[in-house]
């Protein structure tokens, strides 16, 4: 059974194999080490000339990738820990993501920045954050995040094939996860639908009409799924899950479709939405989701589950209390229905 890590790793190999314009760069990515999380393992052995280990220079890594992209290459840059995306903010916001529009569509900037995000490993306040929220909504930038659903490798290949800059957010805990199949294991009771072509979304429909929709992405789906199972088993509450792989630009059509189903016709009950993410609550992904849903759907009831607005502590009990847990999702769902 293959893992998310394997899927991403072989996607990078495929990209290097099939397109000579693809370059991979980042800190400590050479074999035998193969990168801090091993996503780049084996690449430098196979393609020594196109796999470039870099100094510890996050801004220059992304800036260089932008320059490469402007001049016809297709770079994939790795930021060792997603916490360091703060260092690339200028290169992303004021350079890479702006060029195409600012230069009147004269240029395209096909680059991918991969960043492992997330906590739950006791890495402490500067190596555990989910900072993708800072980049959601940046004009000209796409933000994608694989989950264990579908094909994370295909998603990465689609990101590389894209002509615009992409921030590709990988939750660290996802790497060792096996790829999930609908109808198998604890997903047996759910029907899996997907759509969205290049950057697919997934809808997990429960066996009975849902009382609420849970919207999430990435590793959070593991928690959402555990919560949905508990809600079903313990409380006979059915939740439909919508799992996005395109975080930004926001396209919430599948969510709105799902919300339409959570209103039992004639019952007068409100549409119920729960968003789940690991970043801090305030102005996280869920804020935009909730805001758009509130604008579009009348009679909406909504709650967001996210990390507390605090740094992430090193000590396990603190980290656990700060980051959202499946139990928090269950509790929020119960408060909503």
């Amino acid at each position, binding site marked *: 059974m293959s893992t998310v890590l394997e899927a991403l790793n072989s996607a990078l190999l495929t990209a290097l194999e099939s397109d000579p314009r693809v*370059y991979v760069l980042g800190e400590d990515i050479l074999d035998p080490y193969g990168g801090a999380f091993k996503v780049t393992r084996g690449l430098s052995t196979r393609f020594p000339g196109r796999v*470039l280990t*870099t*100094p510890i*220079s996050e*801004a*220059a*890594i*992304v*800036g*260089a*990738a*932008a*320059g*490469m*992209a*402007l*001049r*016809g*290459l297709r*770079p994939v840059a790795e930021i060792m820990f997603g916490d360091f995306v703060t260092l690339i903010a*200028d*290169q992303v916001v*004021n*350079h890479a993501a702006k*060029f*195409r*529009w*600012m*230069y*009147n569509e*004269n*240029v395209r900037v096909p680059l991918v920045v991969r960043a492992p995000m997330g906590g739950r490993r006791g890495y402490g306040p500067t190596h555990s954050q989910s900072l993708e929220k800072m980049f959601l*909504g940046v*004009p*000209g930038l*796409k933000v994608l995040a694989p989950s264990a659903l579908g094909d994370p490798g295909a998603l990465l290949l689609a990101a590389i094939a894209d002509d*615009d800059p992409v921030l590709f957010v990988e939750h660290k805990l996802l790497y060792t996860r096996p790829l999930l199949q609908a109808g198998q294991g604890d997903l047996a009771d759910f029907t899996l639908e997907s759509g969205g072509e290049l950057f697919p979304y997934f809808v997990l429909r429960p066996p009975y009409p849902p009382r609420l929709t849970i919207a999430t992405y990435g590793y959070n789906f593991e928690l959402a799924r555990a919560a949905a199972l508990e809600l079903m088993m313990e409380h006979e509450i059915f939740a439909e899950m919508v799992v996005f792989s395109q975080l930004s*630009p926001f396209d919430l059509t599948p969510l709105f479709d799902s919300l339409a189903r959570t209103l039992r016709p004639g019952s007068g009950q409100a549409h119920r939405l729960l968003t789940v993410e690991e970043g801090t609550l305030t102005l996280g992904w869920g804020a935009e989701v909730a805001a758009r849903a509130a604008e579009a759907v009348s009679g909406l009831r909504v709650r967001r589950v996210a990390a507390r607005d605090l740094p992430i502590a090193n000590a396990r009990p603190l980290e656990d209390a700060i980051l959202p847990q499946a139990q928090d999702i269950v509790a929020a769902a119960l408060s909503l229905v």
Partner: protein
Amino acid sequence: MTDNFALYRVMLLIRRFEERLLAEFSTGKLVGTTHTYIGQEADAAGIFSAASPEDVVFSNHRCHGHFLAYGALSPEGSDPYRLAAELMGKATGLVGGRGGSQHIQWRNFYSNGIQGGIVPVATGMALAEKEKQTGSIVLVFIGDGTLGEGALYESLNLAALWRLPLLVVLENNRYAQTTPVELAVAGSMSGRFAAFGLPVWERETSDVLEVRALAGEAIAHVRSGAGPAALILHTYRFMAHSKGDDPRPPEELARIRQFDPLTIHAARLSPAELDAAEAEVSALLADAFSRAESDPFPVLGNQVNR
């Protein structure tokens, strides 16, 4: 563009273009701001007369002079008209009015208004040219003040490690906005490059022939595949940093006017040549600005965030 007349003509084009711009600003025809190249013309004219038309350029906020000299080099010819249109925010501008003074793009020429941040991008471009084996080098322009930005040093390190065809041109006009170099640059300018293993070509001059010779050496080094280099030109900016507000004392402004690159180079031309250059440039600019002025403004289509 190797003869004296051509060099003079480019410098004069820059000078008159910028003067015209300042005039347009003061009559309210232009909005935003501008950073003129007046006083530094020898740099761009000299450098681009030593570069190849296929070289790649990343310029900064003070990009008009670089662009006009680059354009003069181009087989498609200089294009003050589209630059003027850009500065007026017209749909026919270099980037359709979206970028304005600091953010232009044309052929292999790019500029952006973030100090220092352009250098990593130029470094990546140099990597691309090297990998594609185009034989092109990348020239990136910074000012003395931009030595303050950390992104520069990250890039020098990368460029040196990877032996990239990158020439960093440092135009030291002795001020960053209003801050004299003494308050902003510790140690030594050339040392900043040497520390990363970049050879440095450095000269205090406003003579376009000296610039051309020096730039030629630096460019030849970079083009040979020997890795990145720096070209440091100590020069003077005659006008205010941007539109107005120049805190420098009048004596200083008078003193630096001695080093006018146009005057220095004019001594090599005949009065007839000088008149011809003036007439040619004046006709070119009159045409450029009047066409640009009558061009339409852009409209925002149904743009979406992609």
